[in-house]
């Protein structure tokens, strides 16, 4: 009756959200009075590292290539377990519903906290594009949670950490013909700091200072919808409803007015800073800190101030 957690790796390294997933499973297991069983790729460089976050058993297996195949593999071991945790990364968001369909369908996605009860399993999740918070009870089949990365945090609590091999088969219904990840850049959905800019920048030639600020902060760059629609920036940087939803510790919005569609994609950010010439811009209502000022003056100053701050750390 363990809590099972799927632990994702990329190029054999665990992601930050992977450690958060094990921490989540540990919190759930403590409430339920049970153990944590982590399942990960046999290619993962250091499976034993998961013990520090609470994994008691660590099962390594040769993972299928596609989310459906992985869901089938997980379904072979979840039978009789107390619950299942999957981080809400892009891979997790494809695996979790497929596994849920094979195990009863009691899945909460977009979850933002650990269970408050286990009879039935009860969690909170974001709904209505962040305009509502739903308390949901998982009442039928295997209780499953997919959480928003960076919403519950990583906690170090030791587990037994026994590593074993697992034979589990899954069928891939698709063939991967090409996979590309932008190298040397911070991936937007996983970024801890995001520097985002909008039409206030007046043209794509002015993004140099945004990229410089992002580089100083180790941040990902993003943009508003109008900016991606007119082709100043790639679609992959569009944050908001119908774009990417982000959940960083710090979101810095420069020259973005804050349309409701944009806010739907950023409201999970822990701290929001807005720089805008228009003191009436709606984004200020959603912000923690604001500077009313011209991006072309403020951003270069901010680059220098952040660089000095980072140098002093």
């Amino acid at each position, binding site marked *: 009756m363990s809590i099972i957690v799927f632990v994702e790796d990329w190029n054999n390294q665990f992601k930050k959200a992977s450690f958060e997933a094990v921490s989540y499973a540990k919190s759930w297991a403590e409430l339920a009075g049970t153990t944590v069983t982590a399942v990960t790729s046999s290619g993962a460089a250091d499976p034993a590292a998961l013990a520090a976050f609470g994994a008691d058993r660590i099962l390594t297996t040769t993972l299928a290539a596609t989310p459906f195949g992985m869901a089938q593999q997980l379904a072979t071991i979840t039978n009789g377990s107390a619950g299942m945790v999957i981080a809400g990364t892009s891979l997790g968001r494809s695996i979790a519903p497929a596994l849920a369909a094979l195990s009863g369908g*009691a899945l909460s996605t977009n979850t933002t906290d650990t269970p408050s009860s286990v009879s039935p399993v009860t969690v909170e999740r974001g709904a209505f594009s962040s305009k509502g918070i739903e308390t949901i009870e998982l009442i039928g089949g295997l209780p499953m949670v997919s959480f928003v990365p960076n919403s519950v945090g990583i906690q170090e609590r030791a587990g037994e950490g026994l590593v074993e091999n697992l034979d589990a088969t899954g069928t891939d219904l698709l063939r991967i013909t090409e996979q590309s990840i932008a190298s040397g850049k911070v991936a937007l959905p996983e970024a801890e700091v995001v520097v985002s800019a909008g039409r206030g920048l007046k043209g794509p030639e002015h993004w140099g200072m945004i990229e410089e600020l992002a580089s100083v902060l180790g941040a990902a760059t993003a943009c508003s919808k109008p900016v991606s629609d007119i082709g100043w920036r790639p679609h992959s940087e569009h944050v908001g409803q119908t774009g990417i939803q982000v959940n960083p510790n710090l979101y810095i919005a420069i020259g973005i007015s804050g349309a409701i569609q944009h806010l739907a994609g950023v409201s999970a950010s822990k701290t929001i800073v807005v720089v805008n010439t228009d003191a009436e811009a709606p984004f200020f209502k959603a912000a923690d800190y604001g500077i009313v000022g011209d991006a072309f003056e403020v951003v270069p100053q901010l680059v220098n101030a952040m660089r000095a701050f980072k140098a002093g750390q």
Partner: protein
Amino acid sequence: MNLLVCISHVPDTTAKINFDAAGTALDATGVQFVINPYDEFSLTKALHLKEAHGGTITVLNVGGPETEPTLRKALAIGADQAIRINATPTDAITVAKELKNHIAANAYDLILCGQESIDYNGQQVPAMLAALLSLPFVNACVDLAIDGSAATATGEIDGGHSTYAGALPMVIGGKKGLVEEKDLRIPNMRGIMTARSKPLQVLEATENDAATRAAKFVKPAAKSAVKLVDSVDELVHLLHNEAKAI
């Protein structure tokens, strides 16, 4: 091609969201409903595919009679026929099973959904549907090409893209990129007129076993007022010492 587009009927993006007195459901009073924006990209892609390959577009929705104007709008945009499965969509698995029961009994070449609906933001139904039918599925799909009985589809993954090849039928969770914003179509008068005479079939529901229960909805706590600062140095100081964000 026999194309199916699954449609959700959702509150407009700009709608003010309120919950009923018991706090267990949306208060729909005064709320404008629309085709789920993600589904609209998929519907438009279906129109492009029909124009290129020929065929029929069916739009399918699980919902009560109040969702029919949304189906009529999809017909006005260019779908050929509509089906409403008469049920209150209680949770994702119930909806996915209703869709599965219909699809399993009909020969569709391609099932296009939106990646998620903007009401419950579950991003569950398309992947569940594909798993229930054992059909290939591509989520966050931004590119799709059909070649005979095979398809190539590209989906967004964290920080990049993944391209898949597989046999039809296939389930797609679409989003912007599948078609562009400028490709979306607004119904014209002729479309609205012909939509009235296109078939809208109502099927009775067969599933009623929800696996989740919405116990309560609340609105997020109001954000405290923004702190306006005069200098970047003050901002850096606050971000470090107060917000602990850097």
